């Protein structure tokens, strides 16, 4: 039988289940959902006393939803500590690396492991190594561990092969010069040498054909089968149709 809803009853139920990591409970008047508030720092990959996991929170949601026939939402409360840490790490790294860090975002995998996204103005292998090492030390001083760093090196970013294939689909048949100019609009650091090497890789994988007489590249059936097709405004098929319309024959 469905239990009558009352906030004290829910709190007692959670207490009986030893759910001390839930900092607050309330009923949202607009839709009568049960709202559970849990501090972000009380969530880890595995549940242990005083700390919960995503799986356990999901089970609590299901339990309460069944008991009270209400929607249940969990709000993971992010305090200002994360933003303060982000800002602090950003300043420390920029001081060490002469303002080369464009942006830095962190995400807590659990209470002690930090994943980071770091954007650098011009990323080199050596700089990447040095920043990683230094950041690891900074985190260790704060009793945190580094999970992974994802590099967002905006001006020097390079397209992946799937992104390159999609561009080729829109522009084909296309020569190296024109393709370089168009790709450089989105990826500034792409050079014709780099692009030529990538196109050669794609040719060897059977995805691109080099047409010697016209010195242009076109996609194979295999590549066309790989790139998603659609009718949306942003789909590669529509972009190709528009590109053909603009082309001077």
């Amino acid at each position, binding site marked *: 039988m469905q239990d009558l809803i009352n906030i004290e009853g829910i709190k007692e139920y959670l207490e009986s289940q030893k759910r001390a990591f839930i900092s607050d409970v309330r009923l*949202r*008047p*607009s*839709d009568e959902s049960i*709202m559970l508030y849990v501090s*972000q720092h009380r969530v880890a990959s595995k549940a242990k006393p005083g700390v919960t996991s995503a799986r356990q929170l999901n089970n609590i949601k299901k339990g309460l939803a069944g008991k009270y026939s209400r929607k249940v*939402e969990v*709000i*993971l*409360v*992010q305090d*200002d500590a994360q*933003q303060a840490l982000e800002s602090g790490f950003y300043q420390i790294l920029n001081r060490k690396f002469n303002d080369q860090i464009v*942006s830095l*975002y962190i*995400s807590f995998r659990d209470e002690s492991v930090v*994943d980071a*996204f770091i954007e650098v103005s011009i990323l080199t292998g050596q700089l990447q190594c040095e920043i990683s090492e230094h950041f690891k030390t900074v985190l260790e001083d704060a009793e945190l561990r580094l999970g*992974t760093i*994802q590099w*967002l090196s905006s001006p020097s970013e390079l*397209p*992946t*092969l*799937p*992104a390159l*294939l*999609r561009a080729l689909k829109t522009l084909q048949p296309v020569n190296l010069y024109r393709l370089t100019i168009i790709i450089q609009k989105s990826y500034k650091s792409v050079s014709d040498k780099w692009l030529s090497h990538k196109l050669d890789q794609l040719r060897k*994988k059977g*995805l691109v054909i080099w047409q010697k007489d016209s010195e242009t590249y076109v996609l194979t059936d*295999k590549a066309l089968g*790989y*790139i*998603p097709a*659609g009718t*949306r405004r*942003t*789909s*590669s098929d529509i972009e190709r149709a528009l590109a053909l319309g603009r082309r001077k024959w």
Partner: protein
Amino acid sequence: MKIVGEKLETWAQSQSNIHDKDLFVRSAFNRYYYAAFLITREMLGEFDAKWKHTPHRGIPELLEKALKPPVMHQLKKGVRNNIIGDGEMKRLQQNLQIATSELAKMLRQAYDLRIITDYEPETAIVVDENVLLLMSYKLSSARSWADQASKYCKIIRRVWKDAGLD
């Protein structure tokens, strides 16, 4: 939208009457939420037109559940066709997971607050020196919601593009 929130926040600070202050604080929270929501909705609409019409409270779940399948499908196809390697697939998968989960978490919190500001006038604001709070949320922290949404959307868009999706 964010600049409207900032203006409202400035006005809230300058109000001497607590009732007027309460009204401006609520409106500022509301605008900050909408700024983040609209940034996210625009991105979702680019990926799939029907996602643009997802109700507010459904957006976090959509971010957590609906984006992964098309990205993973395309990435696995890329691995099968020897276009990308396993390492590249895992990197993109992880970027997507972190960015969608952080954005969902933030929007859930922001939406909860937006509901409190709009539908629960009995929950009054608290003024702690110059810090304006509703429940335990600081208005000054809400100011960063739009910027946070932008940064996570940037990462998600990048993964989408790198996977070769439209």
